[in-house]
């Protein structure tokens, strides 16, 4: 982390960048917030640890409009989002100095809480320089410990890899975290009967409170005004008396980002109700891979997005019923 701060100070000092976009230490051990730093003094609050899960690439849409360059700290998976945003002309590459920061897997406070750990006073083992094996958690109810991997976000278990697809320099070590099949859960759901599928999603989506956190955090949902906020389709963005709107919202949201979603997992990370929203996006990704060839959004700058592309031999929609 110190390496990162030093580098940031240098770049600010020599005028390469006008500001640094990173994370500021929070008032609890696990709640750093995305923040801009414009001076060396401000960087005293800079932090980069296992709880810095937020994908900062979306902030670059606004930062691209600011005067001067912004040094942005992007984790390997965040760089895919950034690349995709360049592709969609939403960010300005010239306005970014990308520090590709190392990643040993990001932590999910909800997973830690789910283990009955509460009253947290301090957490040890979440720094980037730590070996990411164990977390030692001091609580008002005593000391607890937890394997690092058990506290990780779902997305880190199916990590796309620790390579930055775009960067100006790389800082900090990474550690491979993939230990699960990316499409395992999607396959499990696919194998259910229609009734089971329906009741699964009914109970998950039944929790949705239409807070729009998933949408607003999503780097692919970068519309100036979402269709659910405008009257173009007569579709409401707020909670409705009947639950259909929630289904509509999540299906359409997933559809709109289909072929553009990098599977960064932010939607699931921020959902206050713990809805595994990534399962929608990942279903589309799986279908796209299977039907139109492997495609990773944000992996490169030139490839055609699957939904703005076609081949004569594409599968017919009737394949849906046939695949069973």
């Amino acid at each position, binding site marked *: 982390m110190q390496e990162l701060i030093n580098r940031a100070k240098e770049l600010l000092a020599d005028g390469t960048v006008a500001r640094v976009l990173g994370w500021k230490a929070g008032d609890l051990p696990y709640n750093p917030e995305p923040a801009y730093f414009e001076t060396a003094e401000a960087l005293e609050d800079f932090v980069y640890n296992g709880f810095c899960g937020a994908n900062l690439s979306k902030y670059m849409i606004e930062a691209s*409009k600011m005067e001067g360059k912004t040094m942005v700290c992007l984790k390997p998976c965040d760089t895919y989002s950034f690349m995709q945003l360049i592709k*969609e*002309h*939403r960010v300005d590459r010239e306005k970014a100095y990308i520090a590709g920061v190392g990643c040993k897997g990001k932590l999910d406070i909800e997973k830690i809480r789910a283990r009955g750990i509460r009253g947290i006073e301090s957490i040890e083992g979440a720094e980037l320089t730590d070996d990411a094996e164990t977390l030692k958690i001091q609580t008002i109810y005593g000391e607890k410990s937890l394997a690092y991997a058990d506290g990780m976000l779902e997305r880190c278990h199916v990590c796309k890899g620790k390579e930055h697809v775009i960067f100006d320099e790389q800082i900090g070590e990474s550690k491979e975290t993939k230990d699960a099949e990316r499409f395992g859960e999607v396959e499990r759901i696919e194998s259910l009967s229609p009734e089971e599928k329906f009741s699964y999603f009914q109970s998950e989506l039944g929790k949705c409170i239409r807070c729009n956190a998933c949408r607003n955090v999503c780097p692919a949902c*970068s*519309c*100036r*005004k*979402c*269709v659910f906020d*405008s009257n*173009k*389709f*007569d579709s409401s963005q707020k909670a409705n008396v009947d639950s259909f709107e929630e289904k509509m919202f999540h299906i359409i949201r997933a559809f*709109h*980002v289909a072929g553009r979603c990098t599977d960064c997992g932010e939607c699931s990370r921020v959902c206050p109700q713990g809805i595994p929203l990534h399962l929608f996006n990942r279903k589309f990704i799986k279908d796209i891979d299977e039907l139109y060839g492997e495609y990773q959004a944000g992996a490169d700058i030139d490839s*055609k*997005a699957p*939904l*703005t*592309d076609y081949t004569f031999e594409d599968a017919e929609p009737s394949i849906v019923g046939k695949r069973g």
Partner: protein
Amino acid sequence: MQRIGVFVCHCGSNIAATVDVSKVAEMALMEPGVAHAEDYQYMCSEAGQAKIAAAIQEKGLTGIVVCSCSPRMHEATFRKAAERAGLNPYMVEIANIREHCSWIHKDMEEATKKAVILMRAAVAKVNLNTPLQAGESRVTKRALVIGGGIAGIQTALDIADAGYEVDIVEKTPSIGGRMSQLDKTFPTLDCSACILTPKMVEASAHEKITIYTYSEVEKVSGFVGDFTVDIRRKARSVDMNKCTGCGVCQEKCPSKKAPSEFNRGLNTRSAIYTPFAQAIPNVPVIDREACIKFRTGKCGVCSKVCQAGAIDYEQKDEIITEKYGAIVVATGFDTIKLDRYDEYAYSQSKDVITSLELERVMNAAGPTHGHLERLSDGKAPKEIVFIQCVGSRCADDRGKPYCSKICCMYTAKHAMLIRDKYPDVNVTVFYIDVRTPGKNFDEFYRRAVEQYGVNYIKGQVGKVIPKPDGKLLVQGSDLLDNRQILKEADMVVLATAIEPNPDVRKIATMLTASIDTNNFLTEAHAKLRPVESPTAGIFLSGVCQGPKDIPETVAQAGAAAVKAIGLLAKDKLMTNPCTAHSDELLCNGCSSCENVCPYGAITYEDKEVNDHGIRETRRIAVVNNALCQGCGACTVACPSGAMDLQGFSNRQIIAEVDAICR
């Protein structure tokens, strides 16, 4: 709020017999925005249109719904009527209660209910309609004819005679097409070459006609009045300007083993060749696959013997880009492959031939120099059997489901010609039906029977068995005598089904012209617009549209020419105002729409916008209305809903959905 008038047409009894039209009108009055509703016998009639006009003016209507036949039929009629009455023509919507309702439902109650719902959907849509203004686009006064057979030549001549430039693109080295391969033509038995060659010469000499032979259409873009076409001129390896057409190169060419396309592979030709003596242009091409120079690098005989120095081994394919206002497709036909009709022994015996091959055999320039002889041993046949409907009228996937139309007549022609020239040869024709609708056609067929003694047997042949002695055993049935016939023959001629030129699919895709399951191009209307494709600016000439004989082809070629001339005669065209439009406050500038636009109609601009007080420069999609054809692909690619389609807006379609589901 709109003031909508609803007009329900009886269409005589076409609608009124199954739909309670007065009930539909009555229910219309319950709909929001509807200020007037009535029903009438024939809305499209002058009296009906007058009623609409009167209501528009008297009741101050701002939009109308006509519940009648398909909008494909009379939408234009009613739009014009509305316009005459002072209403914007795009404030008219049609509820299709005939084709989509009265004609397919029998129960009056059910059909009426559906008609009411269709009316509601149209009313709901009109409530959201906005007046649209048609734009204008220019017309390039030049036509392209794809295919240089009799259809293409005739169309080109007719258009050129009207004073417009025409280009013919022909795939093979010479124009002339199938007709040039024929010996005689029915029902008058003219020599085919004698009537075709003058037309070919006329076309090549016409100052308004440019002929690109050995060329293919590579790419088509644009739209009616303003097509841009890339034409690939394949390397001929012979300089067209230098060649004098002396023919020495062909004579001296040491490679003479390439099958002659013109003679249907019945004999061979040299590697440098003109397909036939009267070819136009009379400039040979080098078949690079057969040429020794191209295969081994050694030879060069043609270059040495050419006095004019026209041989150019280095020549490359060339792409010409040209603009056209109209395109006529005249790609013609071929006979189907017979590899799945083993029962007729076509692949086993050289003496089983197709009718088109027989044309070459009978032709003086053909492989046998016009002598009727067996291709296996050169002996004169004594017994010839013709089999009709080979691959035509076939329900399975071996053949074609349609009647090829020309076979009955050319078989009669062949039978007659053989009997005339070789009276000692017996000719038997196995037929299912003899179809001779056409001027002097049946008389022609009867002459074959009555005057020339051709033996017509009602029944099909089941199999042809080549015998060791070289004869062919034909097993057929005689349905009238109710017996099975075993007949020895020296030759069997198969009246092979015809199919559209296989290239037509590729061309249709480039032209976005629709095509039916048999690869025939679809006409805009089966009865009323038989020479136009549904795609504006594309016209159909000859067999590419459906089987037809020479007189019909020529007639259709002329008709297609007239349609093309009608288009070229206009200076400007009204453009479809139902184009896409981007809401600049919602546009993200993400390029999704641009990526799916087939017309390149969307570009991006950095534009300063005022978004509720926030002023900033944004990358914004801009639609070129002249290029946009209104497909709507962009509207769905756009995630924010910034892109919408006028006349088929998101809210309009949603209103229809809501009205139907209510």
